[in-house]
């Protein structure tokens, strides 16, 4: 039961942590992300559609974004080109600087890296970062700042540079962008979704266009992590059922001791309800103990051991991420759920057999148990 509780709580703590990280990333995401699609795969988006999108009722700003992956020391990191002329969001809020300074609009050849990235490559402000492009050109960038975001994943895999530097690095032509970020006008919160959905519908009329809203991104995250945690939940459920069956079996089928004990208690004056009450208390205490130990093990597994195997499974292909503290969150809901799923099977395995034994004549129970 301890193992089942530890597995259950580990998975859910990590899922909750990943969900929280996802929420943080969505906090600074644009209202809509516009991607190009060809043959079912993402392609660079044509910037000639920007005036059309800008003219749609409700659209406040359209910003080009250039981003992609760079291989640094056998680790794939995300390189994001930010528009410093027209930021549209407060970049320093999304990427709060821990040391050094943020990018400046008149300076190319500089980068700001996440805290975990800096630790990975052993870099400090003032060092130079060397990255090789896909066409095997060597590019060097001065690290002017290190950010420490609320999102552990941002810290672990993001390098920021100017949009021009990113366009040059990824060799994206001037008439294209990796995707477009669309920000809608401020409206009453109750009308926000209606506004976003309207703009999304208008933009989706454009050819080879995929429109992602925050809701779609959130659902994608939930699907990915929910499905993976669901797989582990099945494994956990099998462990739990096995525990309950074994415990029940021990108590009923092989339970001479249990039967004798119940018979003796009845002979000493205990009523059936007294015996069930004793078993309820016993089972509850055992369940609470098992869950508590399981939760502690789960926290230790995530926080100290960094959830080996489980982390790789939950993050999927993102095993290419650099090593970073696995995001996990000890939520009240998960803790309570762990206690419930620990106590209920134990009660099932102890109270029911005790009730069955308590209805048998004490003398028969004691003699039969002794036989």
């Amino acid at each position, binding site marked *: 039961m301890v193992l089942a509780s530890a597995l259950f709580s580990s998975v859910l703590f990590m899922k909750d942590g990943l969900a929280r990280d996802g929420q943080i990333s969505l906090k600074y995401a644009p209202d809509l992300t516009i991607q190009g699609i060809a043959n079912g795969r993402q392609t660079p988006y044509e910037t000639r559609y920007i005036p059309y999108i800008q003219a749609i009722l409700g659209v406040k700003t359209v910003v080009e974004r250039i981003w992609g992956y760079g291989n640094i020391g056998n680790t794939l990191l995300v390189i994001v080109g930010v528009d410093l002329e027209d930021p549209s969001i407060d970049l320093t809020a999304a990427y709060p600087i821990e040391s050094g300074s943020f990018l400046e609009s008149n300076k190319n050849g500089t980068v700001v890296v996440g805290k975990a990235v800096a630790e990975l490559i052993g870099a400090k402000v003032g060092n130079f970062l060397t990255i090789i492009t896909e066409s095997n050109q060597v590019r060097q960038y001065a690290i002017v700042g290190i950010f420490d975001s609320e999102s552990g994943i941002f810290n672990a895999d993001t390098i920021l540079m100017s949009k021009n530097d990113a366009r040059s690095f990824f060799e994206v032509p001037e008439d294209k962008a990796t995707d477009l970020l669309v920000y809608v006008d401020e409206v009453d919160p109750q009308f926000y979704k209606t506004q976003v959905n309207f703009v999304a519908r208008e933009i989706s009329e454009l050819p080879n266009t995929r429109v992602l809203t925050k809701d779609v991104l959130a659902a994608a995250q939930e699907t990915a992590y929910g499905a993976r945690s669901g797989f582990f939940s099945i494994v956990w459920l099998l462990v739990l059922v096995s525990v309950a069956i074994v415990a029940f079996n021990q108590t009923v089928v092989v339970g001479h*001791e249990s039967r*004798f*004990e119940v018979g*003796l*208690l009845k*002979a*000493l*004056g*205990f*009523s059936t309800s*007294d015996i069930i009450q*004793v078993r309820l208390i016993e089972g509850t205490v055992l369940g609470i103990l098992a869950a508590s130990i399981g939760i502690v093990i789960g926290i230790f597994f995530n926080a100290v051991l960094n959830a080996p195997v489980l982390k790789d499974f939950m993050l999927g292909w993102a095993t290419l991420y650099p090593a970073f503290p696995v995001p996990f969150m000890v939520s009240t809901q998960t803790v309570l759920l762990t206690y419930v799923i620990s106590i209920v099977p134990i009660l099932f395995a102890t109270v029911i057999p005790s009730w069955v034994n308590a209805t048998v004549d004490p003398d028969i129970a*004691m003699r039969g148990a*002794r036989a």
Partner: protein
Amino acid sequence: MGFVFQHINLLPNLNAVDNVMMPLVCHGVDLADFRERAFKLLADLGLSDRALFSVEQLSGGQQQRVAVARALITEPAIIVADEPLTFVDEASGKTITDFFIKLRDEKKTILISTHATNLARLADKTYSIQEGKIVN
């Protein structure tokens, strides 16, 4: 009613004094109030130095003495003992017999089934049973 079983029937996961106090649990009393009485009963039965021993650490005779103490903790009006000396050594048997005599002198009612004629002779009234019928 207090019972003394032929097969002793102590709870193996409890020590002697806890076994003695077991019948009190279902009466809803404060066990702390009866702990001293449990120790006194064990002392009367020659087990004052064995009160905190586990059942496994007690001999058969000692276990049966614990069972006798258990039967008395609730101060029952009647004590029923089924072949109480069957698995008991001579010394423990004498201790238990003397204890029953003491209880009789205190006007307690004790019902004993036994094959031991020396124990039966100590009774105020004796009934013989043959083939399930009282013959004497």
